[in-house]
């Protein structure tokens, strides 16, 4: 698709999806919880989409970054540190570890990078499990409180969902801003062709490191929000399965598309829950769905929307004129 799009093409899917994110507020407790999980995963997946979708650097370390956020809250909160500060600290730690993990990305690519980053996730997992007096070991940290601003408490599930929305909005907005900024364009140029990007004066080193660091910081924010949502964290929540879940979200939604993580997190979180009616079969059906989506929609589910647009919504006059002049 070209950059010149009618507003309806550009913003309709986003509006529908944001509408969907408000929907859980009206639902009963369990569905509200699933909706809350969607929000957490969404924020982390937006980070991964930045690293992988825009800059093309595969990262399987996002579960570890999530853990930094969650454990910052879990460890600091009992010492009376306010939640927002914990979140900020968690995001900062993730940011710097993101920079650190970015360094191998300067040397290795594709599957090697996948391996280094999954290795990082495993090392963080093992550390969380074994540094018992610091992280509570495999028992984790129980009793994590939700934020409280004195006059207003976010303790109830519905209030906490609103609290997470308050964070999700600037996250979405900043990701949208990054995508369209000079940075976003630099990331995309690296993804498309590193050599060309370098020749055009894009500093590969700085931008790759930043792609990792910013993506990691988003996951840190998601992790900080994740901890009070569950009220309890343990290392098993931040292992390979989680990191692969983020990868699924980003690719199933649509890699490098802004709407991708939104669609992906809804599908990857809600679909297994919806399939729970089929009891033990739900993971099998989910696995088959993943394979089918990749077989028939390798560009992700956003590809469906593109097909729909191409068929039913006529391009704006501006685009038509462009096409004609291109011919």
């Amino acid at each position, binding site marked *: 698709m070209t950059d010149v799009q009618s507003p309806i093409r550009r913003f309709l899917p986003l509006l529908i999806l944001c509408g969907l994110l408000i929907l859980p507020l009206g639902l009963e407790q369990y569905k509200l919880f699933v909706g809350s999980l969607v929000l957490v995963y969404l924020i982390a997946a937006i980070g991964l989409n930045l690293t992988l979708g825009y800059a093309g650097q595969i990262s399987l370390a996002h579960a570890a970054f999530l853990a930094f956020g969650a454990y910052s809250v879990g460890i600091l909160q009992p010492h009376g540190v306010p939640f927002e500060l914990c979140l900020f600290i968690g995001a900062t730690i993730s940011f710097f570890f993101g920079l650190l993990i970015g360094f*191998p990305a300067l040397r290795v690519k594709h*599957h090697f990078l996948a391996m280094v980053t999954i*290795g990082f996730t495993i090392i963080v997992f093992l550390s969380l499990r074994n540094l018992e007096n610091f992280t509570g070991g495999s028992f984790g940290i129980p009793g994590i409180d939700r934020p409280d601003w004195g006059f207003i408490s976010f303790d109830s599930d519905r209030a906490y969902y609103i609290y997470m929305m308050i964070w999700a909005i600037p996250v979405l907005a900043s990701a949208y801003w990054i995508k369209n900024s000079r940075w976003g364009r630099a990331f995309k140029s690296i993804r498309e062709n590193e050599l060309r990007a370098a020749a055009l004066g894009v500093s590969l080193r700085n931008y790759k490191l930043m792609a990792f660091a910013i993506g990691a910081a988003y996951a840190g924010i998601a992790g900080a929000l994740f901890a009070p949502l569950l009220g309890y964290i343990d290392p098993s929540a931040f292992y390979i399965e989680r990191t692969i879940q983020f990868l699924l979200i980003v690719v199933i939604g649509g890699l490098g598309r802004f709407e991708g993580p939104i669609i992906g997190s809804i599908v990857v979180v809600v679909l297994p829950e919806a399939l729970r009616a089929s009891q033990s079969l739900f993971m*099998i059906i989910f*696995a088959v769905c993943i394979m089918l989506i990749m077989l028939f929609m390798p560009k992700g589910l956003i590809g469906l929307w593109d097909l729909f647009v191409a068929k039913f919504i006529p391009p704006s006059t501006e685009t038509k004129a462009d096409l004609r002049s291109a011919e």
Partner: protein
Amino acid sequence: MADLIQLLVAGLSIGAIYSMIALGFVLLWQTSNTINFAQGEFVVFPAFLMLLFYQTLKWPFAPAFTATVVISTFFLGWVVRKVLITRLLEQGLLPLIIATIGLALFIRYSLQVFWTPLGLYFPPVFPRFTVKVGPVLLPMEELLNLATAGLIILAVHLFITRTKIGWGMQVIAQNRPLATVLGIDVPQLVTMTFVLNAALAAVSAILIAPIYLVKYDIGISLGLKAFYAAIIGGFNQIRGAFLGGLLVGIVETLSAAYISNEFRDGYALIILIFVLMLKPEGIWGKKEEWA
């Protein structure tokens, strides 16, 4: 000293099996740029099949073994290649990776739901007695595992370097357009690689199953170890996968014995990260020789 030698042999024996799994991994990457995230499940599925034939149906060892390898190779080699891979190869690296993750989940949870969520005991394939060499006690099972795995890897090496099909695979790995120009049937050889990989995984399953309890979810860590082994040794060389597997096995066994068991999965990773930082092509890999 005797302890150390015993541990080294134990490490080599488990490492040689990792090498076999890693070897299939490397071959797939070489000929079709496929990173198979279901590699661990490719080992678990035949282990379950073998249990079915050997333990439940009480077949003698040889037919049970043959049936396991044939069935597993057919499904995980041929069917997977035809149904899943052919179409996805045109779509690039990531959709293929995600699809193999889907495949891994499918196999793993199918085994859990339709078979059992419990860990199953697998009878030893080789006799369990120890041989005394001076002060050192060596279990026969480990020595035979090492020998079997070594022979199979040698056979694959000879197949790749001495036969026409093997040369074809090397050409594809080095230069795909050239392979087509030379009249090599690339899709056919890619299929053969998938079949070879599935067969290697099936054989390694029979060797590794008696060491672990067979459980639906052991594939995750097995697949990862094969992946480390391939990367540590060098992704572009058969001997790289071999060396990497042995190294992972030794490091894992020694560190579990001498440092701490809790971090046993961590040491190989630390080596891996250092190898990748210092010599990204792997300890024994050559830059750009293959692919």
